């Protein structure tokens, strides 16, 4: 480093310091003077669950940007009874807005209708009430993923690469409503293009899942598209594709992010993973409740935070965001 450069650097530093000294006159971010509203998020997910940790982070960061207080309530262990209890306590505290996961529409029907009648604005997050409008709980709107659309988009994404000869949806938890909807969307998307497609029950045990896939591909060797529905399907599928030299020959897509999924995308084994950007479910819930309370503004439709695609192009960014607790 030359003497002149050093000199220049010193000048810049001195200027920065001088500016910094004047800075307090204009605060960098206007700190909200007082909390105008209090909003509660009541969900079936325990606060220790990393998935919900991201939702809570979204909620907190929105609460810092608006003059509101936001609190999260979720049972430590999955329990509908506990969820209803928490919801009842939340309603009793008369908040200015509620965001609730409609994990069990029947059980939540009475308390939520009561809250709405008391004039508390209610929005659904993460899980919607599946009943048709009119029958369902009259919440304002839903913020979350559309599982069926996720499966449909997965099929369309694969079809954009090439039309598979045969496709299979490997389901690891048969009868799980969300997974079934993902599968159904995929089946419908593939059938639209006359691709033979079916479901395969692989179970949650990775060894048996690999063998089930192997047997399926042995019986149907023309299969060249595979959808898995979460990490319990991704790991065995990636193992299977690698062990049987099918990488590049079979289009593999999956749902939900975890380390194994990200490295499979980086290695080119997996084409994409579909994610629901749950940070938005916390952030947008607080934001919309604030805008609704303050100005009466609301979106005309449900707000879909997913399906959102993670593929080779954005996997690096997503990995950094996972470390930051935002995805």
């Amino acid at each position, binding site marked *: 480093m030359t003497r002149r450069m050093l000199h220049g650097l010193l000048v810049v530093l001195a200027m920065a310091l001088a500016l910094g000294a004047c800075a307090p006159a204009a605060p960098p971010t206007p700190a909200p003077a007082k909390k105008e509203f209090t909003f509660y998020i009541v969900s079936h997910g325990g606060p*220790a669950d990393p998935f919900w940790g991201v939702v809570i982070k979204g909620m907190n960061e929105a609460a810092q940007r608006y003059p509101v207080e936001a609190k999260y309530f979720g049972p430590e262990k999955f329990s509908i009874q506990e969820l209803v209890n928490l919801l009842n306590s939340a309603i009793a505290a008369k908040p200015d807005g509620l965001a609730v996961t409609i994990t069990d529409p029947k059980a939540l029907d009475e308390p939520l209708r009561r809250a709405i009648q008391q004039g508390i604005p209610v929005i659904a997050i993460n899980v919607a009430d599946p009943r048709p409008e009119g029958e369902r709980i009259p919440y304002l709107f839903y913020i979350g993923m559309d599982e069926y659309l996720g499966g449909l988009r997965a099929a369309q994404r694969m079809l954009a690469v090439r039309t598979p000869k045969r496709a299979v949806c490997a*389901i690891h938890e048969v009868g799980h409503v969300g997974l079934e909807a993902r599968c159904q969307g995929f089946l419908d998307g593939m059938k639209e293009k006359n691709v033979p497609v079916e479901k395969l029950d692989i179970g949650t*045990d990775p060894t048996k899942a690999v063998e089930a896939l192997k047997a399926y591909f042995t019986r149907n060797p023309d299969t060249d598209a595979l959808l898995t529905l979460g990490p319990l399907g991704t790991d065995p599928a990636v*193992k299977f594709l690698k062990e049987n030299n099918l990488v590049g020959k079979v289009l593999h897509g999956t749902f939900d992010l975890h380390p194994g999924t990200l490295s499979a995308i980086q290695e080119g084994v997996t084409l994409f993973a579909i994610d629901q950007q749950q940070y938005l479910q916390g952030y947008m819930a607080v934001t919309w409740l604030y805008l609704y309370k303050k100005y009466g503004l609301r979106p005309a439709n449900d707000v879909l935070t997913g399906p959102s695609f993670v593929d080779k192009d954005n996997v690096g960014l997503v990995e950094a965001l996972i470390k930051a607790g935002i995805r």
Partner: protein
Amino acid sequence: MGPETVEAPSTLAARRRAPAARLAALRRSPEVGALAGFLAVFLGFSAVAPHFLTLDSLAGIMTIAAELGLVAIGVTLLMIAGEFDLSVGSVLGVSAMAFALMARAGAPHLVAFLAALALAAAIGALNGWVVTRGRLPSFIVTLGSMMFWRGVLLAVTGGFPIAYEGTSALFFALSGRLPGGFHASALWFLALALAATVVLTRTPFGNALFASGGNPQAARALGVDVDRVKRIGFVLTAVLAALAGIIQFARFGSVDPLRGEGVELEAIAATVTGGTLLTGGYGSVIGTVLGALIVGMVRNGLVLAGAPAYWYRAFIGLILVVAVIINLRIRRR
């Protein structure tokens, strides 16, 4: 009862002859019934499922049977001694998780391996101690143990899979790929099945297992420490479940909180299909090996035969029951 109690005079006459008597004795051995069930399932799938009779398919069956079979060997020994262990699935998951956490923390794999097995041994010893000291039914005690350790697994993982990237010679020895699509787990399974058979049929401890399950009072009168035998049985069962869990982890490098769920019932299915009596005092590890292979064949064969996805589980149940019926009929006739 029914048909098997009424025997035609000609059959009775035939039994008096020496070779026929030997045949009858053979029929009474647990393995023969299991072998009949095995052959029925094997021939059935060979007929209806294309590609069933290929090396690939055989290797797949072996891989499924190996992990299940390792657990089932322990379950068999313990069932012969007159006790159940429903906690094996949870122990399998917990041990794999313990191994994963230690490996991630940088522990040498061999140390982590031995420590995870030791943890399982401690869980097994606790199961055995509560059952024998409290004079409690093992069904209930290990049901509680199953739930408890599953809960621990859920709490520690926070509901998410724990992944670990890394390999070692130990990983290869546990579940490395062998020529023909086989995995090293198959060798562990066969070696330990052989060892368990020798222990069961050729050693005083094997005798003590049969005696403890068949007639504990008589066994005690003859000087067998029935409680100690059962406690050892619980420890062996837990350690074998842990071995299966770590073998699986070595292959996949991840463990999720559902790992091993349902294995306890599948292991009992393999054991009973293999001719071991739920009531204790009677059974065979070779039969269990055949039972585990039957489960593997059913899983593999149904997909190869193109069974519709949602009927698949129903078929598994049906075929298992049929295999058990064949097994028992052969033995009783």
